[in-house]
């Protein structure tokens, strides 16, 4: 029970319609997101292979007037599995928001969320990619700290020529070969969320109104899968761009990496898109490699923020070794 006659409890599948309605009221249409419907909630929350987190606030009549969600992910850190939770979809009914003194419903929900899920056995890290205004609130009330300024890698020009020895093709879903690729490459990344077929199919293929394209790179000789990429069209910086959402490739496999990024760029170029953009940590091998492939670094309005709750997670380890892409966030 919170102040002002509001009741806060964990969200449940029966809340899907009401949460979706509240989200639609609060945010309206958003080009980047699927429409806020019960189907959307069931996919994003109930369908997540890593489970879901969420709190709702109810008014005295039992109407849902606030929501604070979390999308957990299984992250392997130096061989140990931990849960990292992306906090998202926080919203409150404007009528209730106006009636509360500081801190408002948003903050009350956020703090209830942290005390519910930021405890041993739950989220080892809560994180997000807010713009600076949201960061101000998150920093003040949620104890988020800046992991780093986030940069964009953006390519405008023509990609290089096709890479010999690599065959690149489209797929409609992820299968066991992708899982095998992930399991083979996971030890190369000290800190990375699970990227097997089950997770990837949920994140991309099954998303309502899925706008994602899956591209695979194989060895031309024995057809071994060497890399995958997921990409889509998006509006960014006032332009129609191609967005490289996710990427998994052996950091030493220059040919597969070169081939798949080149094909993704060509695809968006032929569809008249202004540029192709990618997000990854500055500390990642890929940050330098993409620059070698002609991508340029631009400032982004986002800050990568996090709040560890597990004592073994030194902030420096997260900065230096946590590999993430836009697949780990819900903004596109």
């Amino acid at each position, binding site marked *: 029970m919170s102040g002002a006659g509001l009741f806060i409890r964990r969200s449940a599948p029966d809340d899907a319609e009401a949460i979706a309605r509240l989200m639609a009221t609060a945010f309206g249409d958003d080009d980047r997101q699927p429409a806020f419907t019960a189907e959307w909630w069931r996919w994003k929350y109930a369908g997540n292979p890593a489970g879901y987190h969420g709190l709702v606030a109810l008014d005295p009549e039992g109407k849902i007037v606030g929501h604070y969600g979390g999308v957990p992910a299984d992250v392997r850190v130096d061989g140990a599995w931990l849960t990292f939770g992306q906090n998202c979809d926080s919203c409150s009914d404007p009528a209730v928001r106006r009636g509360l003194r500081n801190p408002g419903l948003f903050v009350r929900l956020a703090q209830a969320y942290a005390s519910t899920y930021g405890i041993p056995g739950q989220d080892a890290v809560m994180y997000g990619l807010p713009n600076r205004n949201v960061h101000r609130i998150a920093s003040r009330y949620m104890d988020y700290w*800046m992991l780093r300024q986030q940069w964009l890698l953006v390519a405008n020009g023509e990609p290089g020529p096709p890479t010999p020895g690599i065959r690149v093709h489209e797929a409609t879903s992820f299968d066991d070969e992708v899982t095998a690729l992930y399991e083979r490459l996971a030890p190369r990344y000290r800190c990375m969320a699970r990227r097997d077929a089950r997770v990837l199919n949920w994140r991309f293929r099954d998303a309502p109104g899925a706008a994602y394209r899956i591209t695979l790179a194989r060895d031309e000789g024995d057809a071994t899968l060497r890399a995958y990429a997921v990409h889509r069209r998006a509006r960014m910086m006032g332009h129609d761009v191609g967005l490289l959402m996710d990427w998994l490739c052996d950091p030493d496999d220059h040919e597969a990496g070169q081939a798949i990024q080149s094909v993704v760029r060509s695809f968006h170029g032929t569809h008249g898109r202004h540029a192709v953009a990618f997000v990854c940590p500055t*500390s990642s091998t890929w940050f330098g490699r993409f620059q070698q492939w002609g991508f340029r*670094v*631009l400032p982004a309005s986002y800050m990568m923020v996090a709040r560890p709750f597990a004592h073994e997670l030194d902030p*420096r380890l997260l900065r230096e070794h946590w590999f993430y892409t836009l697949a780990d966030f819900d903004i596109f």
Partner: protein
Amino acid sequence: MGQHVIRAASEADWDRVADGFARHADRDPARTRATVAHAMRDNPHGASGIVALDARDRVVGHLGVTHLPMRIRGDDYVFGRFYACFIDPAYRTGGVHSLFIELDEMFREAFESRDRLAAVFGQWDELDWWFLRHTRGHKAIATSIDLCRAAAGALPTGEIRITGVDDGARSPAVLDVGACGVRRDGAFHAWRTAVPGANDRGWCAWREDALVGVAIARDRRDERLLVDWAVAPDDDAAGHALLAAVVGDGHVPVRARFWTSDAFTLALFQAAGFSVEAGTEAYLSTRTVVPGIDYLSLSQSWHVTMADAGVHPLPRLTIGEPIVYPPPPGTADGRGRYGH
């Protein structure tokens, strides 16, 4: 922790502060005296510090800043960059770094106000930063990036007049910094270029009599370090000409480290063959006192160089115990900490 007194540092203290810092940071004492004198005593905009003295009148702790003239949305302010700070190891025990807190409390009371220091900032040791964030109100402005260019030959020079630092020192011209930046005039630029023992070289870019760019570079080992860099807003020609001067014949790699969100500067450097690297991803943190000037506004508009923030983070001031996360927001233990 032994007996000690705390008071504002005076000009007579800088040598003793330098000696304490040299001991603490394992630096050459004579050179440290020279660099501390340069940064604190000779700074044309001054310096501020608090010292702790033991019963034998020995400086056992110092928390001080070298002043930085700033212009923000047309108004002038002074910021302070933490410099030559140290606490004798014997005085780092006794709870949560108690002498550090004592020094910081007195520093805040004595110096941090609209008319004196509108903000203090610095690059801290990682554990110190964690401590300052949770207990002393410091907020991260940015993490650093490195811009690196291999030895890849000279750059085209262009039409902008480039001079050495001496010409600039005689001019009253002040570089236009746009919405937010360090107020660089000729005298300040000349002082910054004269770091003892560093062999720095400075350049000024001129459009007729207007100062449109300054740069300072330091040659060390196998690379040239771009210590300072500022160009008038969106002056592409000045930027290219200045960068050509810094790169010179292009026979040595060049490295710059910025805390910035400045798209213009990033584009300029990348067009000249620089790539962006993580480097140390060092935090730059600040504590501000003026409404409207906060870590987020600085994060968006302040292009910070190593001359502003220091080439290295400060050596650790705390006893270096592991990070202890405070209780989560919303819990009973966390109450009072996050805006309840």
